[in-house]
């Protein structure tokens, strides 16, 4: 049984790696590359340069190039701005880190506010004994007595 399970895991790993090493898909690359003139991804654009870039990608896939090779060739021609997602290294790493940092700060601020508010409400509940102000209590009694008369 253990041997069968191990064989199944190995088979799954092989299938997974074969899929990863397969040819890149045209549609995936068109969604990851930006048209330089219209600033949308290629799959959203039919401008002349977008059409030409789609042709280039098709030809490179047919020639056996990998996704990273095709992207590198497009970056060499049009600059890093052609990538829909900024690279995860160097200065461009900031584009990934800053939103995460902002999110972390937001979580801390909201958490601190929630904690402060919950403490204040708890404190109010603790200090309140439900007793009426003596003056108010006297007036309520007077009003009730008048009503009963």
């Amino acid at each position, binding site marked *: 049984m253990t041997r069968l399970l191990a064989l199944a895991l190995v088979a799954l790993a092989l299938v997974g790696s074969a899929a990863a090493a397969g040819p890149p898909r045209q549609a995936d690359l068109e969604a990851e590359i930006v048209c*330089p*003139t219209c600033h949308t991804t290629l799959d959203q654009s039919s401008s*002349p*340069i977008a059409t*030409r870039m789609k042709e*280039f990608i098709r030809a490179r896939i047919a020639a056996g190039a990998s996704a990273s090779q095709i992207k590198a060739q497009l970056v060499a*021609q*049009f*600059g890093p*701005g*052609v990538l829909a997602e900024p690279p995860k290294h160097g200065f461009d790493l900031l584009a990934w880190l800053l939103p995460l940092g902002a999110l972390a700060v937001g979580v801390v601020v909201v958490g601190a*506010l929630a904690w*402060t*508010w919950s403490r*204040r409400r708890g404190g109010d509940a603790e200090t309140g004994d439900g007793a009426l102000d003596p003056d108010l209590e006297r007036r309520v009694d007077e009003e009730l007595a008048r009503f009963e008369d």
Partner: protein
Amino acid sequence: MTGRAKTVGQVVALAAVAGLLALLVWKLAFGNGSGAAGALAKGKHPVAPAFTLSRLDTADGKLSLASLKGKPVVVNFWASWCIPCKGEAPALQKAYEKYRAQGLTVLGIDAQDFRQDARHFAKRFGVTYPVVYDGSGSTLGKWGVTGFPETFFVDRSGRLVGERIQGGIDTARNKAAFARGIRLALGKAQ
């Protein structure tokens, strides 16, 4: 929340708003929204924005606009996929041949294009004037280029003269502006 924390929060929020407002004011006051073309349209003669780009016609050569200082230059932005660029290419080449003896240079800037496509284009249209390659379009914002083709005129002092021509220089509406731009760049007309 304590009174002190509340005050600090308000100060931080006010500082953030003030900072954003300052950025907006700075952008409005000093921002170069429409580049050199915008200044030219207002009747000014700004210095032509500098650039150094790789030449299309040589393997590793570079060309800077500064190296052409003292010469009148027609700067033409184009791309091989641009249809009006095909129409005007022969007229630009003809102008280069006609005025070269008077010191005028035509400088093509191929932008947002495949380098190889641009080389085919230049060969097909018999372009012999210098062409530089700006695949990322790094020059477009500074010059205020909004489409292709666009043509500018730089005089011997390195300032923009005439008007920015949008569209082919060979079209009926642009022919006169092109001729005037060349005269101004050569210093032959006011």
